[in-house]
């Protein structure tokens, strides 16, 4: 072929330039505030300052991994996560069915309420379970069962969070199952059980497996619940990292465990990516109309009741406990929220901490929306070349990483890497919001991406061919579809950062802590009064979070919280 004046390179270069411009900010933030801190934390395990300068020490890492205690911690992490996953799936599947396919009074309210536990601050849940299972709690008094401080309590706590994940992921899939294949099977003579086994289950299996994998991931990296419920007897990898860093100052041990966790989590996430059901890309789809329960639904309804009990009991115990003064019902604990008292060790009063929390969360929300929005727009655009597609897939994986990396690792990584002369941010008021935004980032991306990717690209081309520029096209085509999910994301990110504890516990300034940090500080002091204040503070935090989530639920966004 003879060389010709090319029409494309101008346009091609512009495309690449646009891609780079969109990716620049999120990538820079991710590298500075995620990759560098985590890498810094992990490298502490390998690099030792010796007399001849820094040297690589692999033996130290192996020594940590060979310890008896490490082995116990690992074993506990794996089996408690497996048990938590099993309970979540066992209760979540029937609940997903009942809440998404059956019609009964109160269904909408229940569906909205079920998503709340997932974003409840872990510290709050820890407090609630201790109140429920503690010496004077209803479980001991009425059932005579001692669960406080046991592994069972931890497993129940893990299930408390993750039942909602199963209900949402599987429920959304179940709801959008085309009912006609099942009807076809029934017409051919299949009993309901047979229809479930031969038609429904195969269609549902990818969603269930994907939900279970994600739940396992969450359980294995849970921090707040294990820390508040496990006490000194039980420790998972995540809490062990925390103990090694803060109490024992064994940085090498902590780094070794962080590395181990990182490897395991990345492997698991690759698996999740494989299992994630491929969305059909359409924005609208067939949704089966829910029907009245029949006799055959009794078992599902009973298990749903159990799930609701598991979710409601701790919250109820928390609320009741917070209203118990020394002499019966009283608001004394709530009055204590506004005072720092003579004890200055909480850093500030709970009320001030709530204000700090709200302010921090607002910052974290706009940050995660900005970054997540850019990433979602970037990833949803069609790739024109193989190289472009590869870059997109790489970025996709990169921005999912915060989902799996220990928040403790992240928080501690911040502390040890952001103190260089170049960039000393340790005292910056933006440090906590940035960490929280990174924790919420994967969630924002996962919610927005399917929405934007579901828009037919020819809609944008139609707008462009009618004379609309890039910005105008975005306003015409993307925004009308995406504003609800975006708003829902905002609420979700806000709720998540409101309750974020793992990273915040490292980064919050001693004199200006967030509410979860204050609650944890209150808990770590013995005494009925401080515990009562912790209860009251937990109720307030839970109420704010729940209110935000119920508002979000009203937006009826499908993909929210579905990975």
């Amino acid at each position: 072929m003879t060389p010709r004046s090319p029409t494309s390179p101008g346009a091609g270069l512009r495309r690449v330039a646009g891609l780079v411009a969109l990716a620049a900010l999120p990538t820079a933030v991710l590298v500075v505030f995620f990759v560098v801190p985590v890498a810094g934390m992990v490298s502490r395990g390998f690099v030792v300052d010796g007399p001849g300068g820094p040297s690589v020490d692999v033996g130290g890492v192996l020594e940590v991994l060979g310890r008896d205690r490490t082995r116990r911690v690992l074993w506990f992490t794996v089996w408690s996560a497996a048990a938590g996953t099993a309970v979540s799936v066992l209760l979540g599947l029937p609940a997903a069915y009942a809440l998404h396919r059956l019609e009964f009074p109160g269904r909408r309210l229940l569906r909205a309420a079920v998503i709340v536990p997932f974003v409840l601050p872990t510290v709050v849940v820890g407090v609630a379970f201790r109140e429920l299972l503690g010496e004077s709690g209803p479980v001991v008094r009425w059932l005579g069962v001692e669960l406080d401080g046991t592994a069972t309590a931890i497993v129940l706590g893990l299930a408390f969070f993750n039942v909602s994940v199963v209900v949402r992921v599987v429920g959304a899939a179940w709801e959008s199952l085309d009912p006609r294949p099942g009807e076809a099977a029934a017409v051919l003579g299949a009993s309901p059980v047979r229809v479930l086994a031969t038609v429904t289950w195969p269609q549902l299996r990818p969603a269930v497996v994907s939900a279970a994998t994600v739940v396992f991931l969450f359980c294995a990296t849970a921090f707040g619940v294990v820390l508040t419920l496990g006490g000194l007897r039980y420790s998972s990898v995540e809490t062990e990292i925390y103990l090694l860093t803060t109490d024992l100052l064994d940085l090498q041990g902590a780094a070794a465990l962080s590395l181990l966790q990182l490897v395991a989590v990345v492997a698991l996430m690759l698996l999740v990516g494989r299992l994630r059901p491929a969305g059909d890309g359409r924005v609208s789809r067939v949704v089966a109309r829910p029907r009245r329960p029949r006799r055959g639904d009794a078992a599902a309804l009973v298990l749903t009741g159990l799930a609701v009990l598991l979710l409601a009991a701790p919250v109820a115990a928390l609320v009741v406990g917070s209203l118990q003064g020394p002499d019966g019902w009283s608001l004394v604990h709530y009055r204590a929220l506004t005072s720092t008292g003579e004890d200055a060790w909480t850093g500030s009063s709970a009320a001030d901490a709530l204000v700090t929390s709200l302010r921090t969360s607002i910052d974290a929300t706009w940050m995660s929306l900005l970054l997540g929005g850019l990433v979602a727009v970037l990833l949803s655009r069609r790739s024109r070349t193989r190289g472009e597609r590869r870059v997109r897939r790489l970025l996709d994986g990169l921005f999912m990483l915060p989902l799996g990396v220990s928040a403790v690792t992240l928080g501690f990584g911040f502390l040890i890497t952001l103190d260089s002369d170049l960039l000393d941010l340790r005292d910056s008021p933006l440090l906590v919001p940035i960490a929280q935004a990174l924790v919420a980032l994967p969630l924002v991306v996962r919610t927005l991406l399917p929405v934007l990717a579901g828009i037919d690209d020819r809609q944008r081309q139609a707008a462009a061919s009618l004379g609309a520029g890039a910005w105008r096209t975005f306003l015409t085509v993307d925004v009308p579809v995406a504003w609800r999910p975006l708003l829902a994301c905002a609420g979700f990110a806000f709720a998540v950062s409101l309750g974020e504890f793992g990273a915040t516990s490292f980064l919050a300034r001693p004199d200006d802590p967030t509410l979860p940090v204050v609650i944890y500080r209150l808990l770590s002091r013995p005494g009925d009064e401080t515990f009562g204040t912790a209860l009251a503070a937990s109720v307030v935090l839970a109420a704010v979070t729940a209110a935000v989530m119920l508002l979000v639920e009203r937006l009826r966004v499908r993909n929210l919280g579905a990975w």
Partner: protein
Amino acid sequence: MLSIEGVSIAYEGTPAVRDVDLTVADGEVLAVLGPSGCGKSTLLRAVAGLEPALGRIAWDGRDLARTPTHRRGFALMFQDGQLFDHLTVARNVGYALRVRRLRGRRVAERVEELLDLVGLAGYGERLPGTLSGGERQRVALARSLAAQPRLLLLDEPLSALDAGLRERLAGDLRDILRRAGTTTLLVTHDHEEAFTVADRMAVMREGRVVQQGALAEVWREPVDAWTALFLGYARVLTGPAASALLAAADVTATGERVAVRRSALVADDGGPLRARVRSVRATPVQTRLVVDLEGPDSAPLGEADAVADLGRRVGPGDEVRLRVDPGRLAPLPG
């Protein structure tokens, strides 16, 4: 005037369009006709600026390589319309005007005028979701015409519709384009649509333009057997059969092959050709025959199609005489 010079387009190394040269004069409607996958839609998208291309695409001599889609002043209408479902019909139609910062009465008047043009007066407040397929395509057409594009690009504009509606709309489309005087590049796989709407056509095959010219010219002189069959000729006869047909039609053409329409051979007792009927099928207008042609010495020349008036009684095995309508065959070069 649109000029496309030596344009090639590849998808990840696989060529989709190869070295295409085309021009569309002002006010002209050019149809690019080809089977699906021949690269015609890719070519259209490149003209719209949605696909990077090698070569030169220019308007009035000015290269468009650096002009993004939304500044080209073209309008592209998709096969399925791609209306904005959250906007009313009126807002869809007025979209390009609002983009150009027109407001108020002038937009409203122009929208009304366009809806009138496409036969949908009074539909302004409806939402696209409530329209039928044909109505949606009309709205899409009105939307494309609104800002008086210097070039209208139509991508299989009628293919998503059912047969009856397609035929009616093709006629409407032709009238609307004539009245608006819009320069148009149309791609389609349907030769009927191309013949109804266009002034000129280009036939594309495997990424290349194999023939272009005025409708009648392309129709009369298809460049090869494949093109002839794609344009709706029923068969291509070769060898002695071709010679016999050309002789009977009194056409002086040198060639071994001839493309024949189904109605090129007509049963006529005074006709010069002899044939034996193989099968008969009645249609509302005429009887369709498949016959075995016979040479002067009763040598078999092969199978061919023919037609007979409905009044004539013919059955399988009958011998018939045929005359040839010279306007319904095309000698092929080579």
